[in-house]
Protein backbone atom coordinates (compact mmCIF):
# COMPACT_ATOMS: atom_id res chain seq x y z
CA UNK A 1 0.00 0.00 0.00
CA UNK A 2 1.22 3.46 -0.74
CA UNK A 3 0.68 6.39 1.59
CA UNK A 4 1.05 8.90 -1.21
CA UNK A 5 -1.78 10.60 -3.00
CA UNK A 6 -3.94 8.26 -5.02
CA UNK A 7 -2.91 8.25 -8.66
CA UNK A 8 -5.70 9.38 -10.91
CA UNK A 9 -5.62 7.50 -14.17
CA UNK A 10 -7.08 9.38 -17.05
CA UNK A 11 -9.38 7.23 -19.14
CA UNK A 12 -8.85 7.97 -22.79
CA UNK A 13 -11.91 8.70 -24.86
CA UNK A 14 -13.50 5.84 -26.80
CA UNK A 15 -12.60 7.57 -30.03
CA UNK A 16 -9.87 10.06 -30.50
CA UNK A 17 -9.53 12.88 -32.95
CA UNK A 18 -7.77 10.57 -35.45
CA UNK A 19 -11.02 8.92 -36.44
CA UNK A 20 -11.60 9.59 -40.14
CA UNK A 21 -14.16 12.20 -41.07
CA UNK A 22 -17.57 10.92 -42.27
CA UNK A 23 -16.82 12.22 -45.77
CA UNK A 24 -13.47 10.41 -45.96
CA UNK A 25 -15.01 7.25 -44.52
CA UNK A 26 -17.93 7.36 -46.98
CA UNK A 27 -15.56 7.91 -49.91
CA UNK A 28 -13.29 5.04 -48.79
CA UNK A 29 -16.23 2.67 -48.28
CA UNK A 30 -17.68 3.67 -51.66
CA UNK A 31 -14.40 2.98 -53.45
CA UNK A 32 -13.91 -0.40 -51.72
CA UNK A 33 -17.55 -1.39 -52.34
CA UNK A 34 -17.13 -0.69 -56.04
CA UNK A 35 -13.57 -1.97 -56.42
CA UNK A 36 -14.28 -5.33 -54.81
CA UNK A 37 -17.68 -5.99 -56.38
CA UNK A 38 -16.51 -9.44 -57.58
CA UNK A 39 -15.89 -10.81 -54.08
CA UNK A 40 -18.88 -12.93 -53.00
CA UNK A 41 -20.30 -13.20 -49.49
CA UNK A 42 -18.37 -10.24 -48.04
CA UNK A 43 -18.93 -7.48 -50.58
CA UNK A 44 -22.75 -7.38 -50.45
CA UNK A 45 -22.55 -6.84 -46.69
CA UNK A 46 -19.98 -4.08 -47.17
CA UNK A 47 -22.11 -2.44 -49.86
CA UNK A 48 -25.33 -2.58 -47.84
CA UNK A 49 -23.43 -1.44 -44.74
CA UNK A 50 -21.98 1.50 -46.67
CA UNK A 51 -25.41 2.54 -47.92
CA UNK A 52 -26.80 2.30 -44.39
CA UNK A 53 -23.92 4.28 -42.91
CA UNK A 54 -24.11 7.06 -45.49
CA UNK A 55 -27.88 7.40 -45.28
CA UNK A 56 -27.77 7.43 -41.48
CA UNK A 57 -25.01 10.05 -41.45
CA UNK A 58 -26.92 12.15 -43.99
CA UNK A 59 -30.14 11.88 -41.93
CA UNK A 60 -28.25 13.14 -38.89
CA UNK A 61 -26.58 15.92 -40.86
CA UNK A 62 -23.09 14.58 -40.15
CA UNK A 63 -21.89 14.28 -43.74
CA UNK A 64 -21.67 16.65 -46.68
CA UNK A 65 -22.99 16.12 -50.20
CA UNK A 66 -19.69 14.88 -51.60
CA UNK A 67 -19.55 12.11 -48.99
CA UNK A 68 -23.16 11.09 -49.68
CA UNK A 69 -22.68 11.01 -53.45
CA UNK A 70 -19.39 9.09 -53.22
CA UNK A 71 -20.72 6.53 -50.73
CA UNK A 72 -24.09 5.95 -52.39
CA UNK A 73 -22.63 5.82 -55.91
CA UNK A 74 -19.82 3.43 -54.98
CA UNK A 75 -21.97 1.10 -52.92
CA UNK A 76 -24.99 1.22 -55.26
CA UNK A 77 -23.00 0.67 -58.42
CA UNK A 78 -20.93 -2.02 -56.72
CA UNK A 79 -24.09 -3.84 -55.62
CA UNK A 80 -25.55 -3.65 -59.14
CA UNK A 81 -22.34 -5.03 -60.64
CA UNK A 82 -22.23 -7.80 -58.04
CA UNK A 83 -25.81 -8.82 -58.81
CA UNK A 84 -25.13 -8.65 -62.55
CA UNK A 85 -22.12 -10.90 -62.14
CA UNK A 86 -24.14 -13.40 -60.12
CA UNK A 87 -27.37 -13.36 -62.07
CA UNK A 88 -26.53 -12.52 -65.65
CA UNK A 89 -23.80 -15.16 -65.79
CA UNK A 90 -21.13 -13.90 -68.11
CA UNK A 91 -20.32 -16.55 -70.70
Amino acid at each position, binding site marked *: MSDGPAAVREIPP*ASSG*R*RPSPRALACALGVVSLGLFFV*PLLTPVLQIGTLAYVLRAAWRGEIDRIGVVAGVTGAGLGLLLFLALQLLWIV
Partner: protein
Amino acid sequence: MDTWFSSALNRRAFLKSAALIGAGGAYLGGAHLYLKDDRWTPNRSFWVSRGREPVSAALVGEHETDLAIIGGGVTGLSTAIHVLLRAPAAKVMVLEARHVGFGATGRSGGVLGNGTEMGTPAGTEDNVALAIALIDRFGIGCDLERAPVTQLDPYRYVVGLRRAAESLGASVHEGSRVTGIGDGSPVLIRGDRFVLRSPRLIVATNGYTPRLGVAPERLFPAHTAAAVTGPVPPEILRDIPDSILVMTSREMYMWGRKAPGHRVLVGAGAEYFYDNGLYHRGDPFLFRALHRCMAKSFPPLAAFPFQHTWTGPMGCTADQEPVIGTVGSAGNIIYCGGYTGHGIAMGTKAGSFLAGMLHGESPPAWMLRRTLDIPGEPLRYIAVNTIINLMNLGLFSMPKYE
Protein backbone atom coordinates in the same frame (compact mmCIF):
# COMPACT_ATOMS: atom_id res chain seq x y z
CA MET B 1 -0.68 8.73 -29.01
CA ASP B 2 -4.12 7.26 -28.71
CA THR B 3 -5.77 6.16 -31.89
CA TRP B 4 -9.26 4.87 -32.53
CA PHE B 5 -7.94 1.29 -32.29
CA SER B 6 -5.81 1.66 -29.15
CA SER B 7 -8.17 3.77 -27.06
CA ALA B 8 -9.94 2.13 -24.13
CA LEU B 9 -13.46 0.86 -24.68
CA ASN B 10 -16.32 2.30 -22.71
CA ARG B 11 -19.42 0.23 -22.11
CA ARG B 12 -21.32 1.68 -25.06
CA ALA B 13 -18.46 1.11 -27.50
CA PHE B 14 -17.98 -2.42 -26.16
CA LEU B 15 -21.65 -3.24 -26.68
CA LYS B 16 -21.55 -1.80 -30.20
CA SER B 17 -18.47 -3.88 -31.08
CA ALA B 18 -20.01 -7.03 -29.58
CA ALA B 19 -23.22 -6.45 -31.56
CA LEU B 20 -21.23 -5.98 -34.74
CA ILE B 21 -19.24 -9.18 -34.20
CA GLY B 22 -22.45 -11.04 -33.33
CA ALA B 23 -24.15 -9.79 -36.47
CA GLY B 24 -21.14 -10.89 -38.55
CA GLY B 25 -21.22 -14.34 -36.98
CA ALA B 26 -24.97 -14.61 -37.52
CA TYR B 27 -24.52 -13.59 -41.17
CA LEU B 28 -21.84 -16.21 -41.81
CA GLY B 29 -23.83 -18.84 -39.91
CA GLY B 30 -26.94 -18.00 -41.92
CA ALA B 31 -24.96 -18.13 -45.14
CA HIS B 32 -23.62 -21.54 -44.15
CA LEU B 33 -27.13 -22.88 -43.55
CA TYR B 34 -28.51 -21.33 -46.73
CA LEU B 35 -25.66 -22.22 -49.10
CA LYS B 36 -24.79 -25.72 -47.87
CA ASP B 37 -26.55 -28.40 -49.89
CA ASP B 38 -25.75 -32.10 -49.58
CA ARG B 39 -27.65 -33.21 -52.70
CA TRP B 40 -25.97 -34.29 -55.94
CA THR B 41 -27.01 -32.96 -59.33
CA PRO B 42 -28.54 -35.86 -61.30
CA ASN B 43 -26.87 -36.79 -64.56
CA ARG B 44 -29.26 -35.56 -67.27
CA SER B 45 -26.66 -35.39 -70.00
CA PHE B 46 -27.42 -35.95 -73.66
CA TRP B 47 -25.26 -39.08 -73.56
CA VAL B 48 -27.16 -40.73 -70.72
CA SER B 49 -30.50 -39.70 -72.24
CA ARG B 50 -29.70 -41.88 -75.28
CA GLY B 51 -30.20 -44.95 -73.09
CA ARG B 52 -28.80 -46.02 -69.78
CA GLU B 53 -27.17 -49.35 -69.16
CA PRO B 54 -28.54 -51.62 -66.40
CA VAL B 55 -26.87 -50.98 -63.05
CA SER B 56 -24.72 -53.74 -61.57
CA ALA B 57 -25.34 -55.22 -58.14
CA ALA B 58 -24.64 -53.07 -55.10
CA LEU B 59 -22.12 -54.28 -52.52
CA VAL B 60 -23.69 -55.71 -49.38
CA GLY B 61 -22.02 -57.19 -46.30
CA GLU B 62 -18.39 -57.46 -45.19
CA HIS B 63 -15.70 -58.08 -47.80
CA GLU B 64 -11.95 -58.03 -48.32
CA THR B 65 -10.08 -57.25 -51.51
CA ASP B 66 -6.55 -56.64 -52.79
CA LEU B 67 -7.41 -53.23 -54.19
CA ALA B 68 -10.44 -51.03 -53.67
CA ILE B 69 -11.23 -48.22 -56.07
CA ILE B 70 -13.83 -45.56 -55.28
CA GLY B 71 -15.31 -43.97 -58.39
CA GLY B 72 -16.78 -45.60 -61.48
CA GLY B 73 -15.61 -42.96 -63.90
CA VAL B 74 -12.89 -43.07 -66.48
CA THR B 75 -10.05 -42.84 -63.91
CA GLY B 76 -11.31 -45.58 -61.63
CA LEU B 77 -12.14 -48.03 -64.40
CA SER B 78 -8.94 -47.30 -66.33
CA THR B 79 -7.01 -47.98 -63.11
CA ALA B 80 -8.82 -51.29 -62.63
CA ILE B 81 -8.03 -52.32 -66.22
CA HIS B 82 -4.36 -51.36 -66.02
CA VAL B 83 -3.91 -53.07 -62.65
CA LEU B 84 -5.48 -56.28 -63.95
CA LEU B 85 -3.43 -56.18 -67.15
CA ARG B 86 -0.31 -56.17 -64.95
CA ALA B 87 -1.57 -58.54 -62.27
CA PRO B 88 -4.39 -60.71 -63.65
CA ALA B 89 -4.84 -62.59 -60.37
CA ALA B 90 -5.46 -59.47 -58.27
CA LYS B 91 -8.84 -59.03 -56.66
CA VAL B 92 -10.04 -55.55 -57.62
CA MET B 93 -13.33 -53.99 -56.49
CA VAL B 94 -14.72 -50.75 -57.91
CA LEU B 95 -17.33 -48.89 -55.85
CA GLU B 96 -19.60 -46.38 -57.56
CA ALA B 97 -22.21 -44.39 -55.62
CA ARG B 98 -24.75 -44.13 -58.46
CA HIS B 99 -23.89 -45.61 -61.88
CA VAL B 100 -20.73 -45.64 -63.97
CA GLY B 101 -20.25 -42.31 -65.70
CA PHE B 102 -22.51 -40.51 -63.23
CA GLY B 103 -19.89 -37.83 -62.51
CA ALA B 104 -17.90 -35.66 -64.85
CA THR B 105 -17.17 -38.55 -67.26
CA GLY B 106 -20.77 -39.01 -68.37
CA ARG B 107 -21.42 -35.28 -68.62
CA SER B 108 -18.39 -34.22 -70.63
CA GLY B 109 -18.29 -33.19 -74.27
CA GLY B 110 -16.44 -36.33 -75.26
CA VAL B 111 -13.65 -34.53 -77.11
CA LEU B 112 -10.28 -36.20 -76.57
CA GLY B 113 -7.03 -34.29 -76.56
CA ASN B 114 -3.48 -34.85 -75.44
CA GLY B 115 -2.13 -32.81 -72.55
CA THR B 116 -4.02 -30.94 -69.86
CA GLU B 117 -5.77 -27.59 -69.44
CA MET B 118 -2.47 -25.74 -69.14
CA GLY B 119 -0.22 -27.48 -71.67
CA THR B 120 1.33 -30.83 -72.50
CA PRO B 121 3.41 -31.85 -69.49
CA ALA B 122 5.54 -35.00 -69.51
CA GLY B 123 3.63 -38.24 -69.93
CA THR B 124 0.52 -36.69 -71.46
CA GLU B 125 1.61 -36.63 -75.10
CA ASP B 126 -0.09 -39.92 -75.92
CA ASN B 127 -3.29 -39.71 -73.84
CA VAL B 128 -5.52 -40.03 -76.90
CA ALA B 129 -3.53 -42.96 -78.31
CA LEU B 130 -3.96 -44.82 -74.99
CA ALA B 131 -7.73 -44.27 -74.98
CA ILE B 132 -8.00 -45.44 -78.59
CA ALA B 133 -5.84 -48.47 -77.81
CA LEU B 134 -8.26 -49.47 -75.04
CA ILE B 135 -11.27 -48.92 -77.31
CA ASP B 136 -9.72 -51.09 -80.02
CA ARG B 137 -8.45 -53.78 -77.65
CA PHE B 138 -11.77 -54.26 -75.86
CA GLY B 139 -14.05 -53.48 -78.80
CA ILE B 140 -15.79 -50.60 -77.04
CA GLY B 141 -18.68 -49.20 -79.10
CA CYS B 142 -18.75 -45.50 -78.30
CA ASP B 143 -19.31 -43.63 -81.60
CA LEU B 144 -15.57 -43.00 -81.85
CA GLU B 145 -14.52 -40.50 -84.50
CA ARG B 146 -10.77 -40.62 -85.06
CA ALA B 147 -10.37 -37.64 -87.39
CA PRO B 148 -10.18 -34.74 -87.81
CA VAL B 149 -10.94 -34.46 -84.08
CA THR B 150 -10.93 -37.49 -81.80
CA GLN B 151 -14.30 -37.60 -80.09
CA LEU B 152 -16.66 -40.18 -78.68
CA ASP B 153 -19.73 -40.77 -76.58
CA PRO B 154 -18.19 -40.54 -73.09
CA TYR B 155 -20.96 -42.49 -71.39
CA ARG B 156 -20.71 -45.41 -73.84
CA TYR B 157 -16.92 -45.23 -73.43
CA VAL B 158 -17.08 -45.58 -69.65
CA VAL B 159 -19.68 -48.34 -69.91
CA GLY B 160 -17.25 -50.11 -72.26
CA LEU B 161 -14.47 -49.63 -69.73
CA ARG B 162 -16.68 -51.21 -67.06
CA ARG B 163 -17.26 -54.25 -69.27
CA ALA B 164 -13.53 -54.44 -70.02
CA ALA B 165 -12.65 -54.27 -66.32
CA GLU B 166 -15.23 -56.97 -65.54
CA SER B 167 -13.91 -59.15 -68.36
CA LEU B 168 -10.48 -58.96 -66.72
CA GLY B 169 -11.89 -60.03 -63.36
CA ALA B 170 -12.79 -56.79 -61.57
CA SER B 171 -16.07 -56.55 -59.71
CA VAL B 172 -17.85 -53.24 -60.25
CA HIS B 173 -20.55 -52.34 -57.74
CA GLU B 174 -22.88 -49.50 -58.62
CA GLY B 175 -25.28 -47.98 -56.13
CA SER B 176 -22.57 -48.47 -53.47
CA ARG B 177 -21.90 -45.09 -51.94
CA VAL B 178 -18.94 -44.81 -49.61
CA THR B 179 -19.81 -42.96 -46.41
CA GLY B 180 -16.51 -43.19 -44.57
CA ILE B 181 -12.87 -44.13 -45.00
CA GLY B 182 -11.08 -45.51 -41.94
CA ASP B 183 -7.36 -44.83 -41.90
CA GLY B 184 -5.03 -47.79 -41.27
CA SER B 185 -3.74 -50.92 -42.87
CA PRO B 186 -5.95 -52.33 -44.19
CA VAL B 187 -8.09 -49.34 -45.05
CA LEU B 188 -11.65 -49.69 -43.83
CA ILE B 189 -14.20 -48.49 -46.38
CA ARG B 190 -17.72 -48.11 -45.09
CA GLY B 191 -20.93 -47.72 -47.02
CA ASP B 192 -24.60 -47.79 -46.11
CA ARG B 193 -24.78 -51.57 -46.44
CA PHE B 194 -21.18 -52.74 -46.68
CA VAL B 195 -17.78 -52.75 -45.04
CA LEU B 196 -14.76 -53.37 -47.24
CA ARG B 197 -11.16 -53.95 -46.11
CA SER B 198 -8.34 -53.40 -48.53
CA PRO B 199 -4.58 -52.97 -48.09
CA ARG B 200 -4.69 -50.19 -50.69
CA LEU B 201 -7.32 -47.75 -51.82
CA ILE B 202 -7.55 -45.60 -54.93
CA VAL B 203 -9.85 -42.59 -54.63
CA ALA B 204 -10.80 -41.77 -58.21
CA THR B 205 -13.74 -39.48 -57.53
CA ASN B 206 -12.32 -36.25 -59.00
CA GLY B 207 -14.63 -33.38 -58.02
CA TYR B 208 -16.45 -35.54 -55.46
CA THR B 209 -13.20 -36.25 -53.57
CA PRO B 210 -13.26 -33.40 -50.99
CA ARG B 211 -16.67 -34.53 -49.77
CA LEU B 212 -15.04 -37.87 -48.83
CA GLY B 213 -12.62 -35.93 -46.64
CA VAL B 214 -9.72 -36.71 -48.99
CA ALA B 215 -7.42 -33.88 -50.16
CA PRO B 216 -9.91 -31.03 -49.62
CA GLU B 217 -6.94 -28.64 -49.58
CA ARG B 218 -6.01 -29.63 -53.15
CA LEU B 219 -9.22 -30.48 -55.01
CA PHE B 220 -12.53 -28.69 -55.38
CA PRO B 221 -15.58 -29.17 -57.63
CA ALA B 222 -16.45 -26.50 -60.19
CA HIS B 223 -19.79 -26.85 -61.95
CA THR B 224 -19.98 -26.36 -65.66
CA ALA B 225 -22.96 -26.30 -68.01
CA ALA B 226 -23.51 -28.04 -71.33
CA ALA B 227 -26.31 -28.28 -73.86
CA VAL B 228 -27.21 -29.92 -77.15
CA THR B 229 -29.34 -28.45 -79.93
CA GLY B 230 -31.96 -30.31 -81.87
CA PRO B 231 -31.06 -31.69 -85.32
CA VAL B 232 -29.41 -29.06 -87.53
CA PRO B 233 -29.68 -29.21 -91.37
CA PRO B 234 -26.50 -30.44 -93.10
CA GLU B 235 -25.93 -27.15 -94.95
CA ILE B 236 -25.70 -25.31 -91.61
CA LEU B 237 -23.81 -28.08 -89.83
CA ARG B 238 -21.19 -28.04 -92.59
CA ASP B 239 -19.99 -24.60 -91.45
CA ILE B 240 -19.67 -25.58 -87.79
CA PRO B 241 -16.15 -26.66 -86.79
CA ASP B 242 -15.65 -30.24 -85.57
CA SER B 243 -14.20 -28.90 -82.33
CA ILE B 244 -15.50 -25.59 -80.99
CA LEU B 245 -13.32 -23.35 -78.85
CA VAL B 246 -14.46 -19.74 -78.48
CA MET B 247 -12.70 -17.53 -75.94
CA THR B 248 -15.17 -15.50 -73.89
CA SER B 249 -12.47 -13.80 -71.83
CA ARG B 250 -8.71 -14.18 -71.59
CA GLU B 251 -9.17 -17.34 -69.52
CA MET B 252 -12.71 -18.67 -69.98
CA TYR B 253 -14.10 -20.23 -73.12
CA MET B 254 -17.08 -21.92 -74.70
CA TRP B 255 -16.24 -25.42 -75.92
CA GLY B 256 -18.23 -27.75 -78.10
CA ARG B 257 -18.47 -30.22 -80.94
CA LYS B 258 -20.82 -31.78 -83.44
CA ALA B 259 -22.87 -34.40 -81.65
CA PRO B 260 -24.54 -37.56 -82.98
CA GLY B 261 -27.88 -36.98 -84.74
CA HIS B 262 -26.72 -33.82 -86.61
CA ARG B 263 -26.68 -31.78 -83.41
CA VAL B 264 -24.30 -29.25 -81.90
CA LEU B 265 -23.07 -29.59 -78.32
CA VAL B 266 -21.68 -26.58 -76.43
CA GLY B 267 -20.61 -25.97 -72.86
CA ALA B 268 -19.08 -23.23 -70.76
CA GLY B 269 -18.63 -21.75 -67.34
CA ALA B 270 -17.44 -22.65 -63.89
CA GLU B 271 -19.22 -22.12 -60.58
CA TYR B 272 -18.14 -23.18 -57.13
CA PHE B 273 -20.81 -23.97 -54.57
CA TYR B 274 -20.36 -23.65 -50.82
CA ASP B 275 -18.62 -26.47 -48.94
CA ASN B 276 -17.62 -28.36 -52.11
CA GLY B 277 -21.30 -28.46 -53.08
CA LEU B 278 -22.27 -31.07 -55.66
CA TYR B 279 -25.75 -29.75 -56.40
CA HIS B 280 -26.63 -27.06 -58.91
CA ARG B 281 -29.85 -25.39 -57.76
CA GLY B 282 -30.53 -24.07 -61.22
CA ASP B 283 -30.17 -20.65 -62.77
CA PRO B 284 -32.84 -19.22 -65.10
CA PHE B 285 -30.22 -17.22 -67.02
CA LEU B 286 -27.64 -19.96 -67.43
CA PHE B 287 -28.72 -21.69 -70.62
CA ARG B 288 -30.11 -18.51 -72.15
CA ALA B 289 -26.63 -17.02 -71.78
CA LEU B 290 -25.05 -20.15 -73.24
CA HIS B 291 -27.42 -20.11 -76.21
CA ARG B 292 -26.74 -16.40 -76.74
CA CYS B 293 -23.01 -17.10 -76.76
CA MET B 294 -23.45 -19.96 -79.25
CA ALA B 295 -25.66 -17.83 -81.50
CA LYS B 296 -23.19 -14.94 -81.36
CA SER B 297 -20.35 -17.20 -82.47
CA PHE B 298 -22.40 -19.19 -85.00
CA PRO B 299 -25.39 -17.02 -86.09
CA PRO B 300 -27.18 -19.74 -88.12
CA LEU B 301 -27.56 -21.76 -84.87
CA ALA B 302 -29.67 -18.99 -83.29
CA ALA B 303 -32.80 -20.67 -84.67
CA PHE B 304 -32.03 -23.97 -82.98
CA PRO B 305 -33.00 -24.11 -79.30
CA PHE B 306 -31.37 -26.52 -76.90
CA GLN B 307 -33.08 -29.89 -76.53
CA HIS B 308 -30.89 -31.20 -73.70
CA THR B 309 -29.29 -29.13 -70.96
CA TRP B 310 -27.29 -30.32 -68.00
CA THR B 311 -24.75 -29.26 -65.41
CA GLY B 312 -22.20 -31.13 -63.38
CA PRO B 313 -19.10 -30.77 -61.26
CA MET B 314 -15.63 -31.21 -62.67
CA GLY B 315 -12.57 -31.61 -60.45
CA CYS B 316 -10.20 -28.66 -60.24
CA THR B 317 -7.01 -27.70 -58.45
CA ALA B 318 -5.59 -24.28 -57.60
CA ASP B 319 -3.35 -24.33 -60.70
CA GLN B 320 -5.82 -26.17 -62.97
CA GLU B 321 -3.52 -29.16 -63.41
CA PRO B 322 -4.34 -32.72 -62.28
CA VAL B 323 -2.68 -34.09 -59.18
CA ILE B 324 -1.82 -37.45 -57.65
CA GLY B 325 -1.20 -37.73 -53.93
CA THR B 326 -1.20 -40.15 -51.04
CA VAL B 327 -2.91 -39.76 -47.69
CA GLY B 328 -3.37 -41.92 -44.61
CA SER B 329 -0.91 -42.88 -41.88
CA ALA B 330 0.26 -45.87 -43.94
CA GLY B 331 0.35 -43.90 -47.20
CA ASN B 332 -1.92 -46.52 -48.73
CA ILE B 333 -4.71 -44.22 -49.89
CA ILE B 334 -3.95 -42.70 -53.30
CA TYR B 335 -6.10 -40.03 -54.90
CA CYS B 336 -6.06 -38.51 -58.34
CA GLY B 337 -8.13 -35.81 -60.00
CA GLY B 338 -8.39 -32.17 -61.00
CA TYR B 339 -8.53 -32.57 -64.77
CA THR B 340 -10.39 -29.26 -65.21
CA GLY B 341 -12.54 -30.59 -68.01
CA HIS B 342 -9.88 -32.69 -69.76
CA GLY B 343 -10.61 -35.92 -67.95
CA ILE B 344 -11.64 -38.35 -70.67
CA ALA B 345 -8.17 -38.77 -72.17
CA MET B 346 -6.19 -37.58 -69.13
CA GLY B 347 -8.23 -39.72 -66.75
CA THR B 348 -7.58 -42.76 -68.93
CA LYS B 349 -3.85 -41.99 -68.74
CA ALA B 350 -4.03 -41.31 -65.00
CA GLY B 351 -5.35 -44.86 -64.59
CA SER B 352 -2.10 -46.19 -66.04
CA PHE B 353 -0.09 -43.91 -63.73
CA LEU B 354 -2.02 -45.14 -60.68
CA ALA B 355 -1.59 -48.78 -61.69
CA GLY B 356 2.14 -48.10 -62.09
CA MET B 357 2.30 -46.58 -58.60
CA LEU B 358 0.83 -49.76 -57.14
CA HIS B 359 3.73 -51.62 -58.77
CA GLY B 360 6.40 -49.32 -57.40
CA GLU B 361 6.66 -46.93 -60.35
CA SER B 362 6.55 -43.20 -59.92
CA PRO B 363 4.09 -41.04 -61.86
CA PRO B 364 5.42 -37.91 -63.61
CA ALA B 365 6.95 -35.59 -61.02
CA TRP B 366 4.64 -32.71 -61.98
CA MET B 367 1.60 -34.72 -60.84
CA LEU B 368 3.13 -35.04 -57.36
CA ARG B 369 3.96 -31.31 -57.11
CA ARG B 370 2.89 -29.13 -54.23
CA THR B 371 -0.14 -27.00 -54.92
CA LEU B 372 -1.44 -23.95 -53.16
CA ASP B 373 -3.56 -25.08 -50.21
CA ILE B 374 -7.18 -24.09 -50.64
CA PRO B 375 -8.57 -22.85 -47.29
CA GLY B 376 -11.66 -24.16 -45.56
CA GLU B 377 -15.07 -22.48 -45.57
CA PRO B 378 -16.10 -19.70 -45.67
CA LEU B 379 -12.76 -18.46 -47.07
CA ARG B 380 -12.82 -21.23 -49.69
CA TYR B 381 -16.13 -20.02 -51.13
CA ILE B 382 -14.93 -16.43 -51.17
CA ALA B 383 -11.48 -17.19 -52.66
CA VAL B 384 -12.53 -19.67 -55.35
CA ASN B 385 -15.50 -17.63 -56.56
CA THR B 386 -13.48 -14.41 -56.51
CA ILE B 387 -10.92 -16.00 -58.84
CA ILE B 388 -13.65 -17.45 -61.08
CA ASN B 389 -15.33 -14.03 -61.24
CA LEU B 390 -12.03 -12.36 -62.12
CA MET B 391 -11.45 -14.96 -64.86
CA ASN B 392 -14.95 -14.35 -66.24
CA LEU B 393 -14.20 -10.64 -66.30
CA GLY B 394 -10.87 -11.25 -68.01
CA LEU B 395 -8.98 -9.64 -65.13
CA PHE B 396 -7.00 -12.72 -64.11
CA SER B 397 -5.19 -15.51 -65.96
CA MET B 398 -3.66 -18.66 -64.55
CA PRO B 399 0.05 -19.05 -65.29
CA LYS B 400 0.52 -21.75 -67.94
CA TYR B 401 2.41 -24.90 -67.01
CA GLU B 402 5.78 -25.22 -68.71
